[in-house]
């Protein structure tokens, strides 16, 4: 299993801040994962439908969206950050 965490409007659209999913093939990228989740429809389609608006982190490190998941324990999906 892989833990997926969501933030900001992605979290709101999906209606949850965290979930476990079956570990996909190790050459799956974050973008692939996003597409797989978006295919669930509903809030997933709404929050994850446009990958160009999304950013990601693997095991608490920012990564480009086309990074392969490999043996990641935690994948985070969120909009561009707006701190400071």
């Amino acid at each position, binding site marked *: 299993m892989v833990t997926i*965490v969501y*933030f*900001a*409007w992605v*979290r709101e659209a999906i209606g949850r801040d965290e979930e476990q999913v079956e570990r996909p093939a190790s050459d799956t990228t974050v973008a692939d994962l996003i597409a797989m989740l978006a295919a669930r429809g509903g809030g997933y389609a709404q929050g994850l439908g446009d990958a160009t608006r999304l950013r990601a*982190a693997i095991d*608490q*490190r*920012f990564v480009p969206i086309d990074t392969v998941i490999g043996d990641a324990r*935690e994948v*985070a999906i*969120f*909009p*561009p*950050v*707006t*701190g*400071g």
Partner: protein
Amino acid sequence: MKRISIQTGDFDVASELAALEALGGGGVASFTGVVRGEGGLIALELEHYPAMTQAQVERIVEDAMARWPLLGVSVIHRFGRLEPGARIVFVGTASRHRTAALESCAFLIDWLKSHAPFWKKEHFADGATAWVEARAEDDAKAKGWSA
């Protein structure tokens, strides 16, 4: 000195600055960000990625200390619900060189804006809410430091 705090409560700018002044460097720079109350905004709600934030800010601070001759850095970032006038973020730096103190302070706040895992949601008086959009300008500023 390196002090990093991600917290919900307010902080005391004077005591942060006093600690930096006490390092003997001669120059202390700071930046404080405060919630603006314009356009009917009644609150800002800051969400963050707890498992990531502290480590991420630690790395940013280490970068700054490697790049400039700093004696001390203090970074405080609040999360949760903040009303207009409330402080959101503080960056303080101490150095023997005023340019190092000021530049590293600018670097850190630019980096926090574009790379710290925080998200801001605006709450307005009419009940409307909106997630703040990242500004390309902030990203460009942070990239400017990598040269």
